[in-house]
Protein backbone atom coordinates (compact mmCIF):
# COMPACT_ATOMS: atom_id res chain seq x y z
CA UNK A 1 0.00 0.00 0.00
CA UNK A 2 2.90 2.35 0.57
CA UNK A 3 3.73 3.07 -3.00
CA UNK A 4 2.67 5.73 -5.40
CA UNK A 5 0.76 5.09 -8.59
CA UNK A 6 3.06 5.07 -11.57
CA UNK A 7 1.01 7.50 -13.66
CA UNK A 8 0.57 10.45 -11.29
CA UNK A 9 0.11 13.77 -13.04
CA UNK A 10 1.69 17.04 -11.84
CA UNK A 11 -1.57 18.38 -10.33
CA UNK A 12 -1.90 15.14 -8.39
CA UNK A 13 1.63 15.38 -7.02
CA UNK A 14 0.87 18.97 -6.06
CA UNK A 15 -2.25 17.91 -4.18
CA UNK A 16 -0.45 15.04 -2.48
CA UNK A 17 2.18 17.46 -1.23
CA UNK A 18 -0.56 19.41 0.59
CA UNK A 19 -2.67 16.41 1.64
CA UNK A 20 0.24 14.23 2.60
CA UNK A 21 -0.74 13.96 6.24
CA UNK A 22 -4.28 12.73 5.60
CA UNK A 23 -3.10 10.20 3.07
CA UNK A 24 -0.27 9.11 5.32
CA UNK A 25 -2.64 8.66 8.25
CA UNK A 26 -4.99 6.62 6.12
CA UNK A 27 -2.18 4.45 4.79
CA UNK A 28 -0.85 3.85 8.25
CA UNK A 29 -4.30 3.15 9.66
CA UNK A 30 -4.97 0.63 6.91
CA UNK A 31 -1.65 -1.17 7.13
CA UNK A 32 -3.25 -4.17 8.82
CA UNK A 33 -6.58 -4.03 6.99
CA UNK A 34 -7.82 -6.47 4.36
CA UNK A 35 -7.39 -5.44 0.71
CA UNK A 36 -10.39 -3.61 -0.73
CA UNK A 37 -11.06 -6.56 -3.04
CA UNK A 38 -11.70 -8.75 -0.01
CA UNK A 39 -13.91 -6.13 1.63
CA UNK A 40 -16.04 -6.00 -1.47
CA UNK A 41 -16.18 -9.76 -1.95
CA UNK A 42 -17.16 -10.25 1.68
CA UNK A 43 -19.98 -7.74 1.36
CA UNK A 44 -21.30 -9.64 -1.66
CA UNK A 45 -21.05 -12.97 0.23
CA UNK A 46 -18.51 -14.21 -2.29
CA UNK A 47 -15.90 -15.41 0.20
CA UNK A 48 -15.62 -18.81 1.86
CA UNK A 49 -17.42 -18.80 5.18
CA UNK A 50 -14.40 -18.50 7.48
CA UNK A 51 -12.91 -15.68 5.41
CA UNK A 52 -16.22 -13.85 5.26
CA UNK A 53 -16.58 -14.07 9.05
CA UNK A 54 -13.00 -12.85 9.56
CA UNK A 55 -13.61 -9.82 7.36
CA UNK A 56 -16.94 -9.08 9.03
CA UNK A 57 -15.35 -9.19 12.47
CA UNK A 58 -12.62 -6.83 11.31
CA UNK A 59 -15.02 -4.39 9.63
CA UNK A 60 -17.09 -4.25 12.80
CA UNK A 61 -14.08 -2.84 14.60
CA UNK A 62 -12.44 -0.75 11.87
CA UNK A 63 -13.90 2.62 10.88
CA UNK A 64 -12.00 3.00 7.62
CA UNK A 65 -12.95 -0.49 6.44
CA UNK A 66 -16.58 0.09 7.36
CA UNK A 67 -16.65 3.32 5.37
CA UNK A 68 -14.79 1.91 2.38
CA UNK A 69 -16.83 -1.30 2.30
CA UNK A 70 -20.03 0.77 2.20
CA UNK A 71 -18.51 2.96 -0.51
CA UNK A 72 -17.62 -0.06 -2.64
CA UNK A 73 -21.16 -1.38 -2.33
CA UNK A 74 -22.41 2.02 -3.52
CA UNK A 75 -20.20 2.02 -6.64
CA UNK A 76 -21.44 -0.82 -8.85
CA UNK A 77 -19.44 -1.59 -11.99
CA UNK A 78 -20.64 0.14 -15.12
CA UNK A 79 -18.76 -2.14 -17.50
CA UNK A 80 -19.88 -1.48 -21.03
CA UNK A 81 -20.15 -4.75 -22.90
CA UNK A 82 -18.89 -4.20 -26.40
CA UNK A 83 -19.76 -6.46 -29.29
CA UNK A 84 -16.29 -7.99 -29.16
CA UNK A 85 -16.59 -8.80 -25.45
CA UNK A 86 -20.02 -10.29 -26.05
CA UNK A 87 -18.67 -12.45 -28.85
CA UNK A 88 -15.62 -13.46 -26.83
CA UNK A 89 -17.63 -14.63 -23.84
CA UNK A 90 -20.12 -16.46 -26.05
CA UNK A 91 -17.25 -18.23 -27.80
CA UNK A 92 -15.93 -19.28 -24.38
CA UNK A 93 -19.37 -20.57 -23.42
CA UNK A 94 -19.51 -22.72 -26.57
CA UNK A 95 -15.99 -24.02 -26.00
CA UNK A 96 -16.79 -25.06 -22.43
CA UNK A 97 -20.07 -26.60 -23.54
CA UNK A 98 -18.28 -28.66 -26.17
CA UNK A 99 -15.68 -29.73 -23.61
CA UNK A 100 -18.43 -30.90 -21.25
CA UNK A 101 -20.19 -32.80 -23.99
CA UNK A 102 -16.96 -34.45 -25.09
CA UNK A 103 -15.96 -35.57 -21.61
CA UNK A 104 -18.32 -38.17 -20.09
CA UNK A 105 -17.01 -37.42 -16.61
CA UNK A 106 -18.25 -33.85 -16.67
CA UNK A 107 -21.58 -32.57 -15.46
CA UNK A 108 -23.30 -32.49 -18.85
CA UNK A 109 -22.88 -36.27 -19.06
CA UNK A 110 -23.90 -37.03 -15.52
CA UNK A 111 -25.46 -40.36 -16.45
CA UNK A 112 -22.38 -41.37 -18.48
CA UNK A 113 -20.24 -40.56 -15.46
CA UNK A 114 -22.32 -42.83 -13.28
CA UNK A 115 -22.08 -45.86 -15.53
CA UNK A 116 -18.46 -45.26 -16.52
CA UNK A 117 -17.30 -45.02 -12.94
CA UNK A 118 -19.60 -47.63 -11.43
CA UNK A 119 -16.83 -50.21 -11.38
CA UNK A 120 -14.37 -47.84 -9.74
CA UNK A 121 -16.92 -46.76 -7.16
CA UNK A 122 -17.84 -50.36 -6.40
CA UNK A 123 -14.24 -51.26 -5.70
CA UNK A 124 -13.83 -48.22 -3.43
CA UNK A 125 -16.99 -49.08 -1.51
CA UNK A 126 -16.06 -52.76 -1.33
CA UNK A 127 -12.69 -51.93 0.18
CA UNK A 128 -14.25 -49.53 2.65
CA UNK A 129 -16.94 -52.03 3.60
CA UNK A 130 -14.33 -54.73 3.79
CA UNK A 131 -12.41 -52.62 6.24
CA UNK A 132 -15.56 -52.28 8.34
CA UNK A 133 -16.20 -56.03 8.25
CA UNK A 134 -12.62 -56.48 9.33
CA UNK A 135 -13.26 -54.29 12.31
CA UNK A 136 -16.36 -56.27 13.28
CA UNK A 137 -14.50 -59.55 13.06
CA UNK A 138 -16.32 -60.89 10.00
CA UNK A 139 -14.40 -62.21 7.04
CA UNK A 140 -13.45 -59.32 4.82
CA UNK A 141 -13.54 -59.44 1.05
CA UNK A 142 -10.38 -59.92 -1.03
CA UNK A 143 -8.84 -56.46 -1.33
CA UNK A 144 -8.47 -55.81 2.39
CA UNK A 145 -7.20 -59.32 3.04
CA UNK A 146 -4.69 -58.89 0.26
CA UNK A 147 -3.56 -55.63 1.79
CA UNK A 148 -3.10 -57.32 5.16
CA UNK A 149 -1.10 -60.10 3.58
CA UNK A 150 1.02 -57.76 1.57
CA UNK A 151 1.90 -55.58 4.51
CA UNK A 152 2.34 -57.79 7.57
CA UNK A 153 2.97 -56.06 10.81
CA UNK A 154 1.17 -52.85 9.87
CA UNK A 155 -0.60 -51.56 12.99
CA UNK A 156 -4.27 -50.86 12.18
CA UNK A 157 -5.39 -52.63 9.04
CA UNK A 158 -7.26 -49.52 8.15
CA UNK A 159 -4.04 -47.66 7.46
CA UNK A 160 -2.92 -50.33 5.03
CA UNK A 161 -6.29 -50.04 3.34
CA UNK A 162 -6.56 -46.29 3.63
CA UNK A 163 -4.12 -45.41 0.84
CA UNK A 164 -5.79 -47.46 -1.94
CA UNK A 165 -9.25 -46.53 -0.61
CA UNK A 166 -8.35 -42.86 -0.61
CA UNK A 167 -6.85 -43.12 -4.07
CA UNK A 168 -10.03 -44.75 -5.39
CA UNK A 169 -12.15 -42.12 -3.69
CA UNK A 170 -9.98 -39.37 -5.13
CA UNK A 171 -10.22 -40.85 -8.62
CA UNK A 172 -13.99 -41.05 -8.41
CA UNK A 173 -14.22 -37.58 -6.88
CA UNK A 174 -12.11 -36.01 -9.62
CA UNK A 175 -14.95 -36.32 -12.13
CA UNK A 176 -17.73 -35.04 -9.91
CA UNK A 177 -19.18 -31.59 -10.34
CA UNK A 178 -17.41 -28.91 -8.33
CA UNK A 179 -20.64 -28.30 -6.41
CA UNK A 180 -20.42 -31.82 -4.95
CA UNK A 181 -16.89 -31.46 -3.72
CA UNK A 182 -16.53 -32.49 -0.08
CA UNK A 183 -14.78 -29.84 1.94
CA UNK A 184 -13.70 -31.14 5.29
CA UNK A 185 -15.48 -29.26 8.08
CA UNK A 186 -13.69 -27.78 11.04
CA UNK A 187 -13.72 -29.93 14.14
CA UNK A 188 -16.01 -28.49 16.76
CA UNK A 189 -18.11 -29.68 19.65
CA UNK A 190 -21.71 -28.96 20.47
CA UNK A 191 -22.53 -26.59 23.29
CA UNK A 192 -24.05 -29.51 25.14
CA UNK A 193 -20.78 -31.40 24.98
CA UNK A 194 -18.81 -28.40 26.11
CA UNK A 195 -21.20 -27.87 29.00
CA UNK A 196 -21.07 -31.57 29.83
CA UNK A 197 -17.30 -31.49 30.08
CA UNK A 198 -16.22 -30.99 33.64
CA UNK A 199 -19.65 -31.55 35.18
CA UNK A 200 -19.08 -35.23 35.75
CA UNK A 201 -16.81 -38.08 34.89
CA UNK A 202 -18.97 -39.28 32.00
CA UNK A 203 -18.51 -35.96 30.19
CA UNK A 204 -14.75 -36.10 30.55
CA UNK A 205 -14.73 -39.76 29.50
CA UNK A 206 -16.65 -38.89 26.34
CA UNK A 207 -14.12 -36.27 25.38
CA UNK A 208 -11.25 -38.61 26.17
CA UNK A 209 -12.80 -41.28 23.93
CA UNK A 210 -13.57 -38.77 21.19
CA UNK A 211 -10.16 -37.12 21.11
CA UNK A 212 -8.18 -39.80 19.20
CA UNK A 213 -10.91 -40.04 16.57
CA UNK A 214 -11.04 -36.28 16.11
CA UNK A 215 -7.23 -36.14 15.95
CA UNK A 216 -7.21 -38.71 13.17
CA UNK A 217 -9.92 -36.74 11.38
CA UNK A 218 -7.96 -33.49 11.69
CA UNK A 219 -4.88 -35.23 10.30
CA UNK A 220 -6.85 -36.46 7.24
CA UNK A 221 -6.53 -40.11 8.40
CA UNK A 222 -10.17 -40.79 7.59
CA UNK A 223 -9.99 -44.59 7.67
CA UNK A 224 -8.45 -44.48 11.15
CA UNK A 225 -10.95 -41.84 12.20
CA UNK A 226 -13.89 -43.93 11.01
CA UNK A 227 -12.52 -46.98 12.84
CA UNK A 228 -12.25 -44.94 16.04
CA UNK A 229 -15.67 -43.32 15.72
CA UNK A 230 -17.52 -46.58 15.08
CA UNK A 231 -17.46 -48.06 18.60
CA UNK A 232 -18.52 -44.69 20.02
CA UNK A 233 -21.88 -44.90 18.22
CA UNK A 234 -23.25 -47.44 20.69
CA UNK A 235 -21.30 -46.12 23.64
CA UNK A 236 -22.62 -42.55 23.22
CA UNK A 237 -25.87 -42.97 21.27
CA UNK A 238 -27.11 -39.43 21.79
CA UNK A 239 -23.88 -37.58 20.97
CA UNK A 240 -24.19 -35.96 17.54
CA UNK A 241 -20.43 -35.46 16.98
CA UNK A 242 -19.83 -39.20 16.55
CA UNK A 243 -22.19 -40.01 13.67
CA UNK A 244 -21.52 -36.62 12.07
CA UNK A 245 -17.75 -36.91 11.84
CA UNK A 246 -18.03 -40.63 11.10
CA UNK A 247 -20.33 -39.77 8.21
CA UNK A 248 -17.98 -37.11 6.84
CA UNK A 249 -15.00 -39.48 7.23
CA UNK A 250 -16.80 -42.10 5.18
CA UNK A 251 -17.75 -39.49 2.61
CA UNK A 252 -14.11 -38.52 2.24
CA UNK A 253 -13.25 -42.20 1.84
CA UNK A 254 -15.74 -42.50 -1.00
CA UNK A 255 -18.18 -44.62 0.99
CA UNK A 256 -21.25 -42.60 0.10
CA UNK A 257 -23.75 -45.20 1.34
CA UNK A 258 -21.98 -45.56 4.67
CA UNK A 259 -21.76 -41.80 4.97
CA UNK A 260 -25.48 -41.40 4.35
CA UNK A 261 -26.27 -43.99 7.02
CA UNK A 262 -24.16 -42.25 9.66
CA UNK A 263 -25.36 -38.79 8.74
CA UNK A 264 -29.01 -39.89 8.75
CA UNK A 265 -28.42 -41.12 12.27
CA UNK A 266 -26.94 -37.72 13.20
CA UNK A 267 -29.99 -36.02 11.73
CA UNK A 268 -32.17 -37.84 14.27
CA UNK A 269 -30.24 -36.45 17.23
CA UNK A 270 -30.32 -33.09 18.94
CA UNK A 271 -28.12 -31.15 16.58
CA UNK A 272 -27.19 -28.08 18.61
CA UNK A 273 -25.70 -26.01 15.78
CA UNK A 274 -24.87 -28.93 13.49
CA UNK A 275 -28.22 -29.16 11.74
CA UNK A 276 -27.31 -27.34 8.54
CA UNK A 277 -23.97 -29.14 8.23
CA UNK A 278 -25.63 -32.52 8.76
CA UNK A 279 -28.21 -31.73 6.09
CA UNK A 280 -25.53 -30.52 3.68
CA UNK A 281 -23.37 -33.60 3.98
CA UNK A 282 -26.43 -35.89 3.79
CA UNK A 283 -27.27 -34.21 0.51
CA UNK A 284 -23.68 -34.60 -0.70
CA UNK A 285 -23.63 -38.30 0.20
CA UNK A 286 -26.75 -38.88 -1.84
CA UNK A 287 -25.69 -36.70 -4.76
CA UNK A 288 -22.29 -38.38 -4.96
CA UNK A 289 -23.99 -41.78 -4.88
CA UNK A 290 -26.08 -40.73 -7.86
CA UNK A 291 -29.27 -40.42 -5.81
CA UNK A 292 -30.34 -37.05 -7.15
CA UNK A 293 -33.94 -37.53 -6.03
CA UNK A 294 -32.80 -38.13 -2.47
CA UNK A 295 -30.40 -35.21 -2.54
CA UNK A 296 -32.80 -32.70 -3.99
CA UNK A 297 -35.06 -31.99 -0.98
CA UNK A 298 -32.04 -31.77 1.32
CA UNK A 299 -30.34 -29.16 -0.87
CA UNK A 300 -33.62 -27.37 -1.58
CA UNK A 301 -34.34 -26.78 2.09
CA UNK A 302 -30.88 -25.28 2.65
CA UNK A 303 -31.15 -23.23 -0.55
CA UNK A 304 -34.37 -21.66 0.62
CA UNK A 305 -33.17 -20.94 4.15
CA UNK A 306 -30.88 -18.09 5.08
CA UNK A 307 -28.05 -20.12 6.56
CA UNK A 308 -24.36 -20.46 5.82
CA UNK A 309 -24.95 -23.40 3.47
CA UNK A 310 -27.45 -21.58 1.29
CA UNK A 311 -25.17 -20.69 -1.61
CA UNK A 312 -23.51 -24.12 -1.70
CA UNK A 313 -26.88 -25.84 -1.61
CA UNK A 314 -28.25 -23.69 -4.43
CA UNK A 315 -25.17 -24.52 -6.52
CA UNK A 316 -25.58 -28.21 -5.74
CA UNK A 317 -29.25 -28.06 -6.75
CA UNK A 318 -28.21 -26.50 -10.03
CA UNK A 319 -25.68 -29.28 -10.61
CA UNK A 320 -28.25 -32.05 -10.20
CA UNK A 321 -29.36 -33.69 -13.45
CA UNK A 322 -32.12 -31.86 -15.29
CA UNK A 323 -35.57 -32.99 -14.33
CA UNK A 324 -34.58 -33.51 -10.72
CA UNK A 325 -34.53 -29.80 -9.76
Amino acid at each position, binding site marked *: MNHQARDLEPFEREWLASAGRDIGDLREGRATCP*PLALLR*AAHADALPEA*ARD*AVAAHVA*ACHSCAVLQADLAAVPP*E*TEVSASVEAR*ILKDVRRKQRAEAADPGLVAAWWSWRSALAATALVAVAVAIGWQWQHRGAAPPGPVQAARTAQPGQAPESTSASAPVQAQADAAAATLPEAFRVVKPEVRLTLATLAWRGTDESGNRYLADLAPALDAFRQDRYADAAKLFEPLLSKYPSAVEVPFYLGVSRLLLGDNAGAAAALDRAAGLKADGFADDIQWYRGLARARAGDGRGARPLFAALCEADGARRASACAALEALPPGLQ
Partner: protein
Amino acid sequence: MAEKFERIYHQHLTAVLRFATSLVGRKDLAEDITSNAFVALLRNLDAIDEEQLPGWLLTVARNRARDYWRKQATELQYLESLPRSQAADADAGAGPQGLLDNPVLKPVHRICLTLRYVEGMTRAEIAEFLGLSEMQVKGHVQYALQLLRKSAAGSKAS
Protein backbone atom coordinates in the same frame (compact mmCIF):
# COMPACT_ATOMS: atom_id res chain seq x y z
CA MET B 1 -33.44 -23.93 -27.65
CA ALA B 2 -30.53 -22.11 -29.27
CA GLU B 3 -32.72 -19.08 -29.88
CA LYS B 4 -33.94 -19.07 -26.31
CA PHE B 5 -30.40 -19.27 -24.99
CA GLU B 6 -29.10 -16.49 -27.22
CA ARG B 7 -31.98 -14.25 -26.26
CA ILE B 8 -31.34 -14.81 -22.55
CA TYR B 9 -27.61 -14.41 -23.08
CA HIS B 10 -27.94 -11.02 -24.72
CA GLN B 11 -30.54 -9.89 -22.22
CA HIS B 12 -28.56 -10.70 -19.08
CA LEU B 13 -24.89 -10.69 -20.07
CA THR B 14 -24.22 -7.14 -18.91
CA ALA B 15 -25.76 -7.67 -15.47
CA VAL B 16 -23.83 -10.89 -14.90
CA LEU B 17 -20.52 -9.46 -16.11
CA ARG B 18 -20.88 -6.36 -13.96
CA PHE B 19 -21.75 -8.48 -10.93
CA ALA B 20 -18.81 -10.82 -11.55
CA THR B 21 -16.52 -7.78 -11.83
CA SER B 22 -17.69 -6.59 -8.43
CA LEU B 23 -16.86 -9.98 -6.94
CA VAL B 24 -13.31 -10.43 -8.19
CA GLY B 25 -12.14 -7.06 -9.54
CA ARG B 26 -10.38 -8.55 -12.57
CA LYS B 27 -11.63 -8.41 -16.12
CA ASP B 28 -10.31 -11.83 -17.19
CA LEU B 29 -11.70 -13.58 -14.12
CA ALA B 30 -15.00 -11.77 -14.38
CA GLU B 31 -15.39 -12.92 -17.99
CA ASP B 32 -14.47 -16.49 -17.03
CA ILE B 33 -17.01 -16.50 -14.21
CA THR B 34 -19.62 -15.03 -16.54
CA SER B 35 -19.07 -17.67 -19.20
CA ASN B 36 -19.28 -20.40 -16.54
CA ALA B 37 -22.60 -19.00 -15.38
CA PHE B 38 -24.00 -19.21 -18.91
CA VAL B 39 -22.62 -22.70 -19.38
CA ALA B 40 -24.57 -23.66 -16.25
CA LEU B 41 -27.61 -22.01 -17.79
CA LEU B 42 -27.21 -24.06 -20.97
CA ARG B 43 -27.02 -27.20 -18.89
CA ASN B 44 -30.28 -26.38 -17.14
CA LEU B 45 -32.10 -24.42 -19.81
CA ASP B 46 -35.17 -26.64 -19.89
CA ALA B 47 -35.65 -26.50 -16.15
CA ILE B 48 -35.08 -22.76 -15.67
CA ASP B 49 -38.03 -20.46 -15.18
CA GLU B 50 -37.04 -17.22 -16.88
CA GLU B 51 -38.54 -15.26 -14.04
CA GLN B 52 -35.68 -16.57 -11.92
CA LEU B 53 -33.24 -14.68 -14.12
CA PRO B 54 -30.89 -12.96 -13.70
CA GLY B 55 -30.95 -13.98 -10.02
CA TRP B 56 -30.15 -17.59 -10.85
CA LEU B 57 -27.20 -16.57 -13.00
CA LEU B 58 -25.91 -14.21 -10.31
CA THR B 59 -26.06 -17.01 -7.73
CA VAL B 60 -23.96 -19.21 -9.99
CA ALA B 61 -21.52 -16.33 -10.50
CA ARG B 62 -21.26 -15.81 -6.76
CA ASN B 63 -20.53 -19.49 -6.21
CA ARG B 64 -17.81 -19.45 -8.85
CA ALA B 65 -16.30 -16.36 -7.24
CA ARG B 66 -16.32 -18.14 -3.92
CA ASP B 67 -14.44 -21.03 -5.52
CA TYR B 68 -11.89 -18.53 -6.84
CA TRP B 69 -11.36 -16.87 -3.46
CA ARG B 70 -11.09 -20.24 -1.77
CA LYS B 71 -8.03 -20.90 -3.89
CA GLN B 72 -6.41 -17.57 -3.09
CA ALA B 73 -4.42 -18.99 -0.20
CA THR B 74 -2.22 -15.94 0.18
CA GLU B 75 -5.07 -13.49 0.63
CA LEU B 76 -7.03 -15.77 2.88
CA GLN B 77 -4.09 -16.70 5.06
CA TYR B 78 -3.61 -12.99 5.57
CA LEU B 79 -7.05 -12.87 7.13
CA GLU B 80 -5.99 -15.36 9.80
CA SER B 81 -3.57 -12.79 11.15
CA LEU B 82 -6.10 -9.96 11.28
CA PRO B 83 -6.60 -8.53 14.73
CA ARG B 84 -10.26 -9.25 15.38
CA SER B 85 -10.67 -6.57 17.99
CA GLN B 86 -8.60 -3.92 16.30
CA ALA B 87 -9.20 -0.60 17.94
CA ALA B 88 -11.01 1.72 15.60
CA ASP B 89 -8.45 3.88 13.81
CA ALA B 90 -10.55 6.92 14.46
CA ASP B 91 -7.97 9.40 13.31
CA ALA B 92 -6.90 7.65 10.15
CA GLY B 93 -8.15 9.90 7.39
CA ALA B 94 -11.09 10.99 9.50
CA GLY B 95 -12.17 14.49 10.43
CA PRO B 96 -13.78 17.08 8.23
CA GLN B 97 -10.66 17.63 6.13
CA GLY B 98 -9.76 13.93 5.95
CA LEU B 99 -10.84 11.54 3.26
CA LEU B 100 -13.06 9.19 5.21
CA ASP B 101 -15.53 11.56 6.76
CA ASN B 102 -15.39 14.55 4.42
CA PRO B 103 -19.03 15.20 3.52
CA VAL B 104 -18.19 16.74 0.16
CA LEU B 105 -16.99 13.39 -1.19
CA LYS B 106 -19.35 10.84 -2.69
CA PRO B 107 -18.54 7.14 -2.38
CA VAL B 108 -17.11 6.97 -5.90
CA HIS B 109 -14.77 9.87 -5.15
CA ARG B 110 -13.57 8.40 -1.89
CA ILE B 111 -12.97 4.99 -3.41
CA CYS B 112 -11.10 6.40 -6.40
CA LEU B 113 -8.91 8.54 -4.13
CA THR B 114 -8.21 5.60 -1.80
CA LEU B 115 -7.32 3.26 -4.64
CA ARG B 116 -5.19 5.95 -6.25
CA TYR B 117 -3.30 7.47 -3.37
CA VAL B 118 -3.45 4.87 -0.60
CA GLU B 119 -3.29 1.65 -2.60
CA GLY B 120 -1.17 3.23 -5.38
CA MET B 121 -3.19 1.92 -8.33
CA THR B 122 -2.89 3.36 -11.82
CA ARG B 123 -6.00 4.73 -13.50
CA ALA B 124 -6.19 1.60 -15.66
CA GLU B 125 -6.03 -0.66 -12.60
CA ILE B 126 -8.73 1.36 -10.83
CA ALA B 127 -10.90 1.20 -13.93
CA GLU B 128 -10.58 -2.59 -14.11
CA PHE B 129 -11.21 -3.02 -10.40
CA LEU B 130 -14.28 -0.81 -10.32
CA GLY B 131 -15.66 -1.71 -13.74
CA LEU B 132 -15.42 1.89 -14.96
CA SER B 133 -13.65 3.41 -17.93
CA GLU B 134 -10.29 5.13 -17.49
CA MET B 135 -11.92 8.40 -18.55
CA GLN B 136 -14.49 8.00 -15.78
CA VAL B 137 -11.76 7.31 -13.21
CA LYS B 138 -9.76 10.32 -14.34
CA GLY B 139 -12.87 12.48 -14.13
CA HIS B 140 -13.80 11.25 -10.66
CA VAL B 141 -10.28 11.80 -9.33
CA GLN B 142 -10.02 15.31 -10.78
CA TYR B 143 -13.44 16.32 -9.51
CA ALA B 144 -12.75 14.85 -6.07
CA LEU B 145 -9.54 16.85 -5.76
CA GLN B 146 -11.39 20.00 -6.77
CA LEU B 147 -14.00 19.32 -4.09
CA LEU B 148 -11.33 18.78 -1.47
CA ARG B 149 -9.50 21.99 -2.45
CA LYS B 150 -12.73 23.99 -2.21
CA SER B 151 -13.56 22.34 1.08
CA ALA B 152 -10.12 23.17 2.46
CA ALA B 153 -10.35 26.76 1.17
CA GLY B 154 -13.80 27.14 2.71
CA SER B 155 -12.51 25.91 6.07
CA LYS B 156 -9.60 28.35 5.98
CA ALA B 157 -11.89 31.26 5.11
CA SER B 158 -14.18 30.51 8.03
